[in-house]
């Protein structure tokens, strides 16, 4: 199952990158306090997914992570400035979260095929929570967009 273990590694890495990016955006836009607090909350969701995955990753082995390098998206090391910056950062987070979600979808399919109930459970839960992250990002972008696009200094 070399490719499944590859995807397990990818899930772990992309959740890690998403968590770091949530934290960077939260900190960078700390003046928007709801962004600060919610980003931290959502980063903790990513951390939890990684913890839940850890024992399974050990089972599958995580050695082969060469190939999916091409699939990795770069995280956001630093937030942009201002209201437009916030809008773009939220969009970037949305892209990263989408990669995470499709990764879990792929893993869930593999877990079905292997009848690995434990992995299926982790992939399903994580997928649902990634949906919640995407929903919040969408909601927050809709709120921020008009003012940022039209009036912001």
């Amino acid at each position, binding site marked *: 199952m070399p490719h499944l273990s590859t995807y397990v590694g990818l899930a772990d890495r992309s959740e890690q990158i998403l968590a770091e990016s949530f934290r960077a955006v939260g900190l960078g836009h700390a003046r928007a306090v*709801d962004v600060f607090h*919610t980003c931290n909350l959502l980063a903790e969701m990513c951390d939890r997914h990684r913890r839940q995955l850890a024992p399974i990753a050990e089972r599958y082995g995580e050695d082969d992570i060469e190939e999916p390098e091409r699939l990795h998206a770069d995280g956001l090391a630093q937030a942009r400035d201002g209201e437009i910056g916030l809008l773009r950062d939220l969009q970037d987070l949305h892209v990263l979260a989408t990669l995470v979600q499709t990764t879990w979808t792929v893993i869930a399919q593999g877990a079905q095929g292997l009848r690995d109930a434990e992995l299926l459970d982790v992939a399903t839960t994580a997928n649902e929570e990634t949906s919640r992250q995407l929903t919040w990002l969408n909601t927050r972008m809709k709120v921020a967009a008009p003012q940022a696009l039209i*009036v912001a200094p």
Partner: protein
Amino acid sequence: MVDRINDIWGEGTPHPRGTVWPARVDLHLEEGVAEADVERWVQSACLLCSNGCGCDIAVKDGRMVGVRGRAGDTVNHGRLGPKGLYGSTPWASSSDRLTRPLVRRDGQLVETDWETAMGRIVEVSKGLLAEKGPLSHGFYTSGQLFLEEYYTLAVIGKAGLGTPHMDGNTRLCTATSAAAFKESFGADGQPGSYTDIEHCDAIFLFGHNMPETQTVLWARILDRTRGEDPPRIVCVDPRHTLVAAEAERTGGIHLAPRVGTNLALMNGLTRELFTHGWVHTEWVEEHAIGVDDLRDTVAPYTPEEVERICGVPAADLRQAARIFGESEAVLSTVLQGFYQSHQATAASVAVNNLHLLRGQIGRPGCGVLQMNGQPTAQNNRECGADGDLPGFRNWDNPTHVQQLADLWKVDAMTIPHWAPPTHAMQIMSYAETGSIGFLWISATNPAVSMPESARIRKILAGEQCFVVVQDLFLTETAELADVVLPAAGWGEKTGCFTNVNRTVHLSEQAVEPPDEARSDLDIFLAYADAMKFTNIEGDPLIGWRTSEEAFDAWREATRGRPIDYTGLSYDKLRGPSGIPWPVNDEHPDGTDRLYADGRFPSDTDECETYGHDLLTGGAVTETEHRAMAPAGRAFLKGAAYTPPHEEPSEDYPLRYTTGRTVYQFHTRTKTGRARSLDQAAPDAWVELSPTDAAGLGISEGDWVRVESPRGAIEVRARVGTVMAGAVFAPFHYGHWDPHDLAPDAEHRLANELTMTVWDPVSKQPYFKTAACRVTKTRDGDGPSPAPTTAASAPAAPQTAEAPASPPGGATSSEVLADTPHYALDPSSRRT
């Protein structure tokens, strides 16, 4: 003659379960005026808390000189509380009323005429509209205007300008109540009624210090707990309030969760219902969706886990849940202890969940009262000056938006509906950067009432945003404005307002406003005229001139919605007073209680919102909502507990929480100008537990510095009944002082310490979850100025030297031998 400062609730009239609450008529006239001297009594309702007590205003020589409760009013059966009695009228003839407009010239506010003041407003408004468009405009209102004023402003904002930036201080007091209704039932609207008090066998008060916040409602409860077949009381509050004492007296229980942990407690209570088979499975099956997810969400919250998180003994949680699970008719009330605390909406929704799980909603005794903080807050929610669309319409539903566009004869694109309305804290953030460059504040005092005061003052005083303030007095906020408009107040204008349990009252003009002061309605109409707002037919957008015409326009806006005013008119409201909506052909005399048929306004095409993720605030889409096929069923929604945003640390080891005293309202604009009330609570204080006070070497009356990462106050300490580890500060005191005598006027503002943080769904700021440290600065020279009554009473007995409050003015109180008939009251019988 009764002193209602020290006898807060007045003479009891205990009565058995299921019988009508007796009537007692309370009256107060200013010193030197006898009842025979009163020339006219003018119909109104009290504006000094959210209870909505019907009253008549006494007029003599063109002045308001007192008030009397209306015996036949469905809300109060004649009673009034200390604030209503003593505080309703003295402010009106106060010598420091604003009587002429002011404009800022060379940094100073100077008197001017209306033409100049309105000319300045319109010039800035038009300039910004041309340069940046309507998103440059923001409006921040109140919970104390009349519905005609809110509706008129809503039409100006949504159809005239087209700005989503409208909110009120209702965001600080009642937003979570509305949000919890919308999430659970699909639309705003109080399910229960005050008449539930007469029929219940248990009352749960969640974060609700009712003896101080709604004294007349508490008197109604006391008349049950002191009568035959009393209900048991359960109190959830970190302070040992009188509710807690009554809980212990009635065989109920007091749960004191650590500040910020309400949701964990609620999840524990919910789990107990599932564990012990107290869920009414058939009812839930038919009338609610989401029960499986909720059961999973609360599964980890065992009583022991709740004890670990909240500090509430597991056995106490079990007992409280048992009372809920085994009572046949539970009434729940919820207020700021939940609304202004961490995970506000999720915790308040959890109260709705308990009732849904037990199938206890929609019949006498089984009520939820998600309370309001202010007398007209409900109307701000209904009419849409808080940003919502009028008539509980859904901004995300194009049909609802089109209904308003048709009613107002404007292009639907004008009406801002592309995103949720901008909430108060976000409006302030936009004003901070100048993204909003025109901010109009009516009848509220954010410089004192908003969190993190230093920041708010800077925003209002700055050059980046033009600020208009209309008020009765030169408040701490008005002092910072660019233009100040003198407003007419209660009794000086006519209009309607609606209380917590949907009861509509008409408040008639009793006297003329002073000098050049104008009603808020007239001010908004003057702005609309000057801006020349028109509809697509080229006619003026606002087609009304009087409050009655405005009411009739509003009535049309409610047609076909859950909030139906179509059967109401000024004439009808002049009859037996206090009529709860919906009032229509089906319910010509109003409706005592919603959802009697177990059908909720949750359908996708009917609901006010598609709902949210309670943890993040992420919005549910129309497609997702439709897929759930609510079909008139209520939603059971849950969320996991997360720790509060600021936990005590080594530097700030205590939990800081703010709240009210029974004698003051808001920032004391009215109550501080009433001698009896002012003397009873003349200056700020903080309450510490005896344990913490002893540890810090603090005695009653000592001066202490209370500090958070954001700011500090220096006031005197009351060693009181707050739980160990918590510090309570009353939020009423800014630097304004009626006598300029307060020694701490410049450093007593409780919101200097609070955080800028809000609930993800209701966007209500959290005033009750900051960390702080307390240090003694010097010895006091006597007890603190805190009242010695209610929850501020000193901890007995070591500090009992604190004297009772000075007596209030004389009032009279007469229990009527024959209780009037109350048309909708299930226990009222015609005699």
